[in-house]
């Protein structure tokens, strides 16, 4: 696995950086505790439909979004709770959306797979594998059209690179030199199909060669490595106006969705346990402790405050009202211009 930028034991970090690094740990903990609570709520029948958890991949959302500006555009697949939280959609609004409540970030009409907050440039969780990748190319096209300094980024799993939407979208982004970043979260499995059983080549980043596009592989369990790789991609997009395919190697600790067992027939319990040894939250908290930026008690206190925030979000979502019946027909079409 390429590109670990972590050098444990370094002590000289300025206070602002230390604060930033601690905030990354808090964001990762926020995702973890949120997802655990969502899993619990799903089991209780409070969340319906499909629910795809992000546990194990937290460093990807945190490390990549840390490089962005507030006016950048984000699209994601249906495994997008983590990105939504890191982008600043409140745990209350995300949990309420999972519960299908009116206070949810999509008014209870999107659900787990369709989180939106246009005010934060968070332009959807999308439910068709690969289908949202061309949308990001379109947003990057709009950025170039208007001549702004924004970038458009897209999250998808490694299974999406085998479909036509990925190929078509990346070809046009490279052809037209668009400020887009395609983030492939390679968590090794498309549902229950291992990468090696679905893709003729195993190195996803090599796909970029087909489009003469910049590419990089990064360890997705190491938040600071992810951040560094993303910084390079963002600079390439914002300053050179060129796209990047960023392959982030990570691992999904849970099943594909809440309907699935953690390992099932397609991977062994031992494999999952082995991967859990590189839990991105443990990796990062140990680094902060080793660097003297936090104590173990500090980490515990941070976790406790996160748990309280998630408990609050859960209560809020549980008690929030359903959308009014008249919302059924709202927003199918734009309101008639007056």
């Amino acid at each position, binding site marked *: 696995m390429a590109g670990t930028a972590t050098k444990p034991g370094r002590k000289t970090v300025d206070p602002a950086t230390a604060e930033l690094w601690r905030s990354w740990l808090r964001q990762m903990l926020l995702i973890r505790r949120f997802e655990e609570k969502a899993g619990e709520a799903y089991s209780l029948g409070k969340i319906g439909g499909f629910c795809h958890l992000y546990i194990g991949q937290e460093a990807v959302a945190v490390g990549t979004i840390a490089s962005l500006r507030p006016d950048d*555009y984000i*699209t994601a697949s249906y495994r997008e709770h983590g990105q939504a939280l890191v982008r600043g959609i409140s745990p209350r609004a995300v949990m309420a959306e999972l519960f299908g409540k009116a206070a949810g*970030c*999509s*008014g*209870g*009409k*999107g659900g787990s797979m*369709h989180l*939106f*907050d*246009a005010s934060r440039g968070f*332009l*959807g969780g*999308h*439910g*068709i594998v690969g*289908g*949202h*990748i*061309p*949308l*990001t*190319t*379109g*947003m*990057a*096209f*709009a*950025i170039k*059209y208007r001549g702004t300094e924004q970038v*458009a980024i897209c999250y998808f799993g490694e299974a999406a690179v085998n479909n*036509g*939407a990925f190929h*078509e*979208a990346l*070809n*046009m982004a490279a*052809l037209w030199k668009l400020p887009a970043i395609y983030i492939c979260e390679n968590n090794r499995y498309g549902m229950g199909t291992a990468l090696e059983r679905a893709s003729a080549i195993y190195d996803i980043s090599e796909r970029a060669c087909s489009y003469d596009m910049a590419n990089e592989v990064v360890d997705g369990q190491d938040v600071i490595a992810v951040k560094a790789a993303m910084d390079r991609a963002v600079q390439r997009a914002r300053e050179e106006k060129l796209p990047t395919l960023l392959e982030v190697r990570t691992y999904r600790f849970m099943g594909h969705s809440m309907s699935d067992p953690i390992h099932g027939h397609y991977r062994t319990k031992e494999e999952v346990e082995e991967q859990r040894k590189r839990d991105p939250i443990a990796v990062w908290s140990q680094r902060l402790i080793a660097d003297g930026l936090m104590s173990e008690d500090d980490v515990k206190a941070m976790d406790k405050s996160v748990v309280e925030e998630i408990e609050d979000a859960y209560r809020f979502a549980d008690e929030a009202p359903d959308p009014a019946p008249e919302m059924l027909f*709202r*927003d*199918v*079409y*734009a309101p008639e*211009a007056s």
Partner: protein
Amino acid sequence: MPTLTYRDALNQALREEMHRDESVFLMGEEVGVYQGAYKVSRGLLEEFGARRVVDTPITELGFAGVGVGAAMVGLRPVIEMMTFNFALLAVDQIVNSAAKMRYMSNGQVGVPMVVRGPGGAALQLAAQHSQAFESWYAHIPGLKVVMPATPADAKGLLKSAIRDDNPVIFIEGEMLYNTKGEVPEGEYTIPLGLADVKRPGTDVTLVCHSKTVAVALKAADQLAADGINAEVVDLRTIRPLDTATVLSSVARTHRCVVVEEGWGFAGVGAQVVDTIQREIFDELDAPVLRVTGAEVPMPYNKQLEKLAKADPAKVIAAVKQVLYVD
């Protein structure tokens, strides 16, 4: 009033809207350097430049998705499909992305995009290039479907479609591009969702759209020789459907034949007939009949192709049936 071809009326609408609104751009296969596969975009590259008249690779799914993404962040794409047969590759983007975005996002993100190009059969283009798909798109909440039959309607409706804040499927007719008619100059828009009585009549209502308007008018001319006075109602917009105009016509004539180019099964006409029987059952003096394309993939052979298409003779036969005359 100047006389223009349907093609030039569309060209004029595009040019005027691109001048009016900087956020409007045209994208598709061969729209620029080649001047459009059917020359609808003639001269636009020279006038507006490659930033706003964008040639794409042959990648319908991809550039339809690019249009959706650009529209989600405020541009107004006009996406040209060389034909709607090829748009099948883009149906995921049109149905799953464009049509759903506003609803899934609780009204936060709209998709003001036009997908336009020719639909239906031309001459001897065979099975994969001769299909009318309006009923597919009309089935989808969130989409509007517009199908102009005349040069004036083409201009007025395209301008409205481009200004509409919803995804609009704008299906032209390959066989209509050379047809001529008077077209108002300058600002001329027709609201989406309004049918148009192309010929007033008293004895029977012919409901039609796009290419079958000419079929219905020709049938009406021949019926007039037999003393039968047919009213021709051009739907112009399939969704939203102008049921009021259809119902008021049928309530006066008491008889109706619906004519469409596409296959009959689950077609546009099925929706029209459903509306008529539900709303004004007691006004009907005969069952509503339909003239549609034959339920076959379009054959290449000229004679077989003719048999597969709706034509004036089939319309006249249906009219005589609903009037109980020979």
